[in-house]
């Protein structure tokens, strides 16, 4: 191992160093005189994010267990940008009295889960993949239960940890069968030795179910709404965007790289689950009153659209999935940012509370409008282009009926997104949420989201860049 080899792991190493620095700053802090090192954490993470964009070499480490390719670097940068937005949005929430003295826990846990996701995305071996996955999910449960004095937070935390333990158990059972049939756990060797037999298919189904829990595909989605509602809003946004995005990234890498031999089997599986996920997610979203539950079901249906990019097994499909998650990061974090700002200032989270919001908070309402339009896929916002590429990828392979179902689902989703818009802009209300000024970090975060939503769609170079690099999976 030389220094050059270590520099390949730059992003993970920087994250771990940042985490340790925050930890030591917290340990050596005088609790009576100084405040928690929140600003320090934010600046450190901003440095990590920008360092991630520096050009990097590609290669493998540890005998092929750890891999760096252009695609994976793009994936990590997307996640980093998303986490930066989440951290900016949570500044005002962490400023509350009841969290005083324990805010660095939040940063430390958050950054270590991100390091887990980076390791997971860079995996070239199922052991690395599994450890990254667990590092990304176990501390998340602690984050969901972060609000010690809330019943819902504790309930959400226990639901997340038990479900994630069950799902990784199922996934591991599949992995053990893969090991039994091929005798190896390296992605390349498994891909080479995998055959289209019964035991292999069974192993794949176990593996698929485990991953389906993580990105909340129907019928494995039942935990999502409860956990999202129980967690504090900022952590919900982290869960729904970053955590889900990372799981989708590694899922598509493993599907394309390790299981191309049984592509016909998993195409059928994905066909059925995609239809179910889109439809059930959308139909359940209509009847939600709590905005966090509402966005939870909307994110389930978004995962259904994502599966359209998986199904073809093509380069376009992979590029469109990465592009869609990039767009989804900005749109969903925009929506969650508004929900978080309002929830932190007034404590209200129901759609009915948003009646007449445009009168008192025009800026926030406009951001919410843009974010929801982008999620629904209305041109000219970025969400439209994201959906367009996904549908193109599926249509290229001849899945016209699936694309038709997806388009119908977009219409359903437009209906419930417009319910929120209607509440904000049209419904009259005697006692709307009072007017308030967000703090600077929230404004910056929402500004980045709006810029992303508006610009990414038109910057065709981004999709080209992703497409040229994908398939160096």
């Amino acid at each position, binding site marked *: 191992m030389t220094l050059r080899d270590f520099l390949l792991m730059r992003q993970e190493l920087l994250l771990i160093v940042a985490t340790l620095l925050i930890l030591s700053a917290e340990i050596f802090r005088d609790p009576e005189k100084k405040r928690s090192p929140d600003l320090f954490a934010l600046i450190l993470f901003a440095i990590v994010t920008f360092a991630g964009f520096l050009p990097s070499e590609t290669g493998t480490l540890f005998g092929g267990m750890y891999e760096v390719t252009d695609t994976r670097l793009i994936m990590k940068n997307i996640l980093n940008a998303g986490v930066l937005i989440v951290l900016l949005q949570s500044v005002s929430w962490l400023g509350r009295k009841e969290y005083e003295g324990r805010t660095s826990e939040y940063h430390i846990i958050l950054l270590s889960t991100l390091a887990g996701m980076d390791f997971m995305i860079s995996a070239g071996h199922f052991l690395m993949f*599994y450890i990254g996955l667990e590092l990304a999910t176990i501390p998340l449960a602690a984050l969901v239960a972060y609000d010690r004095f809330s019943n819902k937070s504790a309930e959400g935390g226990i639901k997340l940890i038990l479900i994630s333990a069950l799902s990784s*158990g199922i996934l591991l059972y599949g992995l053990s069968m893969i090991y039994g049939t091929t*005798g190896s756990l390296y992605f390349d060797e498994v891909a080479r030795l995998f055959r289209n037999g019964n035991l292999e298919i069974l192993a794949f189904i176990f593996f698929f179910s485990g991953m389906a829990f993580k990105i909340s595909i129907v019928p494995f989605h039942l935990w999502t709404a*409860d956990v999202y*509602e129980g967690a504090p809003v900022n952590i919900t946004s982290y869960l729904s965007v970053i955590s889900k995005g990372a799981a989708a990234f590694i899922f598509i890498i493993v599907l394309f790289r390790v299981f191309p031999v049984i592509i016909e089997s998993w195409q059928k599986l994905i066909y059925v689950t995609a239809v179910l996920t889109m439809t059930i997610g959308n139909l359940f979203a209509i*009847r939600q009153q709590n905005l966090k539950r509402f966005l939870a079901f909307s994110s389930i249906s978004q995962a259904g659209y994502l599966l359209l990019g998986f199904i073809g097994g093509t380069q376009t499909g992979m590029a469109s999935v990465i592009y869609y998650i990039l767009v989804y990061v900005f749109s969903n974090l925009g929506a969650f940012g508004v929900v978080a700002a309002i929830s932190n200032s007034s404590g209200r989270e129901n759609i009915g509370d948003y009646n007449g919001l445009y009168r008192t908070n025009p800026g926030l309402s406009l951001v919410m409008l843009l974010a929801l339009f982008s999620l629904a896929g209305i041109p000219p916002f970025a969400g439209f282009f994201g959906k367009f590429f996904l549908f193109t990828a599926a249509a290229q392979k001849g899945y016209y009926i699936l694309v038709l179902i997806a388009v119908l689902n977009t219409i359903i989703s437009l209906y419930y997104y417009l319910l929120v818009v209607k509440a904000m802009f049209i419904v009259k209300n005697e006692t709307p949420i009072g007017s308030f000024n967000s703090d600077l970090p929230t404004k910056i975060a929402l500004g980045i989201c709006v810029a992303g939503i508006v610009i990414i769609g038109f910057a065709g170079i981004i999709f080209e860049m992703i497409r040229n690099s994908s398939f160096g999976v």
Partner: protein
Amino acid sequence: MNAGIPLSYFLILAALMFFTGIYGFLTRRNLITILMSVELILNSVNINMLAFNRYLYPHKLEGFFFSLFVIAVAASEAAVAIAIIINIYRRFTTINVEDVNEMKY
């Protein structure tokens, strides 16, 4: 070597443990017992890994190492889960899942 017990016995034992764990996870009402069911599932994976490694690929070590990591990760999982369960007990004064149901749709 391995004259005594055929491989299939281990696999059947592991499958039984796995589905006992799933059954326990779905039917038990006590949070600690649910956690124990998850441990059963993870241990069935370990048995599978070890048996495959010993019988089919005796010159390799991946299965042995994987099961070591599974044990370590399971321990940390249990630590976090029990911490949350203690918090649940403080908030709800019970760890019966029927009573921890603030959120429903």
